């Protein structure tokens, strides 16, 4: 499923946070959105998953006009792993993941054995089998994030939006979460902070700064020391990691 967001302008409190941005995620592509803090990544993603209404622009997911559709029809095909998942009330892990089935349920429809099966598979995928009855609030940050991912998996989306899914995770879970998403083999748009991870997992990258699109391209052609200096104000050297063969970035400390 292809995502096309065109000429997006998002204004919050009279400031243009996202200024005329167009992005495209081709079928089953993993696309990364990078840029410094406050560049408008989250805002752009939120307007794609219908939490913020953009001032201008159009968003199509396949044939579906996202901005004009009901949240219910969008959520049947788009799963979201958001940034803030704190609760004032507690749920068990199973209940949390089961809520991923909400978009597929009609009024008064009960949870079927099939739904529970889907939940079990989703928990298995994020290696949380056996956690069904644990309370969500007592889990560690990494486990919580995996529960949220499992909920998105249980939603059985054909497109996934993620806002810094690896935040606060140790390196194991950073790799694990991105690998799971990659295996889902659905179109994915993710805001990421770690450039090396972005280079490793993304097929295509968009770079944002101050609400504008600065550059786009495959990680290899895009991530150069000039661009990183321009976007993040940090000096670095780009090299090929001799062990993994992937792109490596050596940052220079401020002197």
């Amino acid at each position: 499923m292809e995502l096309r967001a065109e000429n997006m302008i998002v204004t919050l409190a009279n400031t243009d946070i996202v200024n005329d941005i167009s992005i495209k995620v081709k079928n089953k592509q993993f696309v990364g959105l990078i840029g410094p803090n406050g560049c408008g990544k989250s805002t752009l993603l939120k307007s794609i998953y219908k939490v913020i209404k953009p001032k201008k622009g159009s968003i199509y997911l396949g044939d579906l006009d996202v901005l004009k559709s009901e949240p219910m029809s969008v959520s049947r095909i788009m799963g979201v792993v958001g940034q803030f998942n704190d609760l004032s009330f507690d749920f068990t892990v199973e209940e949390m993941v089961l809520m991923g089935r909400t978009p597929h349920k009609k009024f008064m429809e009960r949870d079927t054995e099939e739904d529970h099966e889907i939940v079990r598979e989703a928990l298995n995928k994020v290696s949380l089998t056996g956690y069904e009855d644990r309370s969500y609030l007592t889990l560690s940050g990494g486990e919580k994030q995996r529960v949220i991912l499992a909920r998105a998996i249980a939603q059985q989306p054909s497109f996934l939006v993620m806002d810094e899914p690896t935040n606060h995770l140790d390196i194991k879970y950073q790799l694990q979460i991105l690998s799971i998403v990659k295996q889902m083999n659905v179109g994915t748009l993710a805001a990421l902070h770690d450039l090396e991870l972005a280079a490793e997992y993304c097929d295509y990258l968009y770079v944002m700064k101050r609400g504008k699109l600065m550059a786009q391209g495959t990680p290899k052609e895009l991530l150069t020391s000039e661009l990183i200096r321009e976007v993040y104000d940090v000096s670095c050297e780009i090299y090929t990691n001799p062990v993994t063969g992937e792109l490596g970035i050596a940052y220079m400390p401020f002197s």
Partner: protein
Amino acid sequence: MKSQNSVTTGFRNKGRVQQKSFVMLIVFLIVFIVFSIGCSVAIGQVNISLGDTFRILLYKSSGMRLGSLDGISQASFADIIWHIRMPRALMSMLIGAGLSLCGVVIQASVQNPLADPYILGISSGGALGATFAIMLGFSIPGILGQMGVAVWAFAGAFGAALLVLAIANVKGKVTSVKLVLAGMVINALCNSFSNFIVYLANNSEGIKTVTFWTMGSIASATWDKLPLVAVSICAASLFFLTQSRILNTMLLGSEAAVTLGISLNQYLRIFMLVSAFVTGIIVASCGTIGFVGLIIPHIVRGVMGSDHKRLVPVSILFGSLFLIWADILARTLIPQSELPIGIITSMIGAPMFMYMLMKKGYGFGGK
């Protein structure tokens, strides 16, 4: 593969066992409520034997077809049982159900475990209406006038709730924080006006009535007051029993709810209006009975978890049970006298809540 299969069937069995024990719990609660109503009717200042109570109930509730009243020592017993104690027991059952239902809904709506049905300014709005009617002797002519204080209390309660919703609605989205703060403001405003009226009127008999009213009492329950309360609470219960999925996603916050296809804003308004209406009716018929709407949802959540599929029905039943027994205590704790039920519910509720807070592991719904 074999081991995985056994794991799967294990889960299936677990699901079925849970479902079965849940149904058992519901049945047990209903049976216990019926039993408690029986107790409530049998216990009181006039000593009426259990056998006589049962015969009177059977005779009256079967439309005077079954059994007879022959041999019951005093004719007035039948009146006490049927016209005083029975409506009272039923009223406390309904009020308990209504308050804890509204408590569950409001806590989910504002995503705040400290919220209760009175958070929208309903109690102080109702008190202001009642004070106005009692102190100034104001009443509407005609049929409405006969209900006097109750009508004014309802008008005050519902008016305060609407005002809170309107304030929270100004400039865009209703958020839970705005609702809570608006509720506090309206509470303070209504309280100050009530005090103002009390001060100006300087009527000591009236002050006593107002105080008694704000403490809450089911003593005035009669058969003709029941239908309105019964219909509105039953209708609200049925409505919210169908909304468990939406109540669940509410607890995730509005952002996560949208990504699951539920746009909370519209539901929030409807849920608030329905709860405000029900609470308004409750306040109008028996004053403010504190702590029920706060404590019952917490106790039930502590045992059943936060899933509203279970939380809503169990809270309704447990709330009924709690208030029936609170009413029994209110009538019998001090001989020859009757305590306002609001005192009892707070005296029991507050220590219970304290215990739950101190008990390790209560995470507002986690098991």
